[in-house]
């Protein structure tokens, strides 16, 4: 009798301590900037944190490194139990993170890796090199049969964004398989209006561009605009179609691929990234050892299979 009572008490104590433990946990979420795919990850983080019963403090740095620094310091002051951070610029917030480390707060970097940091305990994010590679590979498969010199337009993201740099690297690696290809690279700073202008001008200078790679698929509508302008708007499979691939997984990319304008996009798994970030934080708070690098490669979908996979695409509405 007393044994049963004892275990009931033990379980109750465990339950209540877990409850109170969960109630006590506050996660500090430092976001670099609010835009569509970032919101996708932060929403996933918020959902998972809510599920775990954590309190969440969100701060947004609006693209300013200094602001992010002080915001992280503010999180440290507020004695959060863990910090999830996506850095404005992967090199900028070291000071604040070291402050966190000194205060004993575990730090999980998400989406942007901080390889040189002395304070980050774990990273979860996309495998941008493999994402770029996948998009490039599909492009190569489409262009393989063509003879003569092939000109390809690459719309670069922001040149100080590691994900943009890595996507470009993967893409270029894939294109090495084609012997006679020339890649025209134009920077867009992730801005669609600039992508529009860059694409327009690129096609002016090289009317015979056979393929376009967009580092973010939100720029695909701009590509559509230009191709319509110059009467080169042909769907997948049609004669004269310009191969278009991209990385991200937004609604723009989804729609363009579904309708057969774009050949395919790499969809990042934002939900899993968000969940994993919170799980890593939980593990670190509990003092467990975690893997330092947790990359989540995206999935490549073509116009054929994208609609059936709609549920897994974060941007698809």
């Amino acid at each position, binding site marked *: 009798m007393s044994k049963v009572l004892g275990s009931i008490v033990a379980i109750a104590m465990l339950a209540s301590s877990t409850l109170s433990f969960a109630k006590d946990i506050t996660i500090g979420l430092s976001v670099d*900037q*609010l*835009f*569509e795919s*970032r*919101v996708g990850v932060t929403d996933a983080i918020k959902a998972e944190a809510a599920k775990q019963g954590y309190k969440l403090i969100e701060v947004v740095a609006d693209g300013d490194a200094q602001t992010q620094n002080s915001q992280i310091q503010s999180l440290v002051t507020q004695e959060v139990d863990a910090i999830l951070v996506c850095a404005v610029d992967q090199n900028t917030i070291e000071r604040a993170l070291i402050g966190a480390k000194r205060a004993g707060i575990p730090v999980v970097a998400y989406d942007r890796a901080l390889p040189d940091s002395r304070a980050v305990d774990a990273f979860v994010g996309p495998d941008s090199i493999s994402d770029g590679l996948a998009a490039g590979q599909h492009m190569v498969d489409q262009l393989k049969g063509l003879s003569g010199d092939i000109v390809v337009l690459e719309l670069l993201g922001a*040149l100080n964004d590691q994900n943009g740099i890595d996507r470009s690297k993967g893409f270029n690696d894939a294109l090495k398989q084609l012997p006679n290809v020339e890649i*025209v690279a*134009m*920077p867009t700073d992730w*801005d*669609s*209006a600039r*992508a*529009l*202008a*860059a694409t*327009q*001008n*690129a096609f*002016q*200078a090289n009317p015979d561009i056979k393929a376009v790679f967009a580092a973010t698929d*939100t720029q*695909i*509508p*701009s590509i*559509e*605009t230009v191709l*319509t*302008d*110059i009467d080169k708007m042909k769907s997948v499979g049609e004669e004269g179609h310009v191969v278009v691939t991209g990385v991200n997984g*937004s*609604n*723009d990319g989804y*729609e363009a691929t579904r309708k057969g304008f774009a050949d395919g996009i790499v969809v990042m798994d934002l939900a899993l990234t968000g969940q994993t970030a919170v799980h890593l934080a939980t593990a670190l708070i509990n003092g467990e050892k975690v893997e330092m690098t947790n990359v989540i490669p995206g999935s490549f979908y073509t116009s054929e299979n994208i609609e059936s996979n709609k549920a897994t695409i974060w941007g698809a509405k």
Partner: protein
Amino acid sequence: MDRFKQTFSSKKWLAIALATLALGIALSLVSTAFLTFSNIQSVLVQASVTAIMAVGMTFIILTGGIDISMGAILFFTSSLFAKIMVETGSYSMAFTAAIGCACLLGAVNGLLVVRFKIIPLITTLATYTMYRGMAIHLTGAQNIPVPREMGFLGNGKLMGIPVPILLLAIVFVLGLYLLNKTRFGLYVKAIGNSEQSARETNLPVNWVTILVYVIGGLTTGIAALILLARVGGLQSGIGIGIEFTVIAAVVLGGTKLSGGSGTIVGSVIGAVFLVLIDNGLNLLNASPYIYDIVKGVVLLAAVIIDKVSFERQAKHLLEQKALRIKSTSGVA
């Protein structure tokens, strides 16, 4: 010949027109892709957004004011339009709301400037921050696509002419008429020349001031819809920062920031000129970071040349005056 020279040099937009021509010639020599019909057309279409806004900005600067919140107005207008479109599917609602809102935001700027007498730069700095915050609040930083058909506004052609260029032409003509052929236009320039005297001569300074900011808002609203159509939907931060390009276009076009002197023709050519620089650098495959340096140098050069020619003109006028006095006194 002197008469000819005089009328020509009194055209304030001459300098920028010549500069644009020179740049065009230089680019066509350097790149074969430049002087094609489709490239020129593409330059004009690209310039349409800033050029339309420049027309509105000209009115504001002519009164001696300035509006650095235009980019935020663009951002908010686009956000509002996209949101209404996606929630109601009604074009008429979205269009009216967007244009109406753009005018309203402009009116708020004007009202604040007139009522509180805080200089326009500070007022519009404050409203820039506010409008931007409101826009992000409205959409939660989401990208919202706009329907396919909307693309017509940005990419379509009417009678063979791209829609944006047509819209620019309409705004341009209306602006010219308003500025040069109406009393309103006269008042605008009078206020810019001296607000004090304008008030003393009982001009409706307050109303005119509010109205120019409304015009600024209206042109921004139109530009917002074109840009929205061209990029396919609301993208984060769309339009933020564009006001500096617009101001540069207006100043390059020969309008003085102190007010009272300037032309709409100059502002539009100025907008085209800036796009030409981008276009040229793109065609030349220039390093992405050179763009800013080139634009900065060009801007400085333009202002210096303008100042030098102004001084020379002033000197010339003084000399002529002196000559006339000399000759008349000589005869007497």
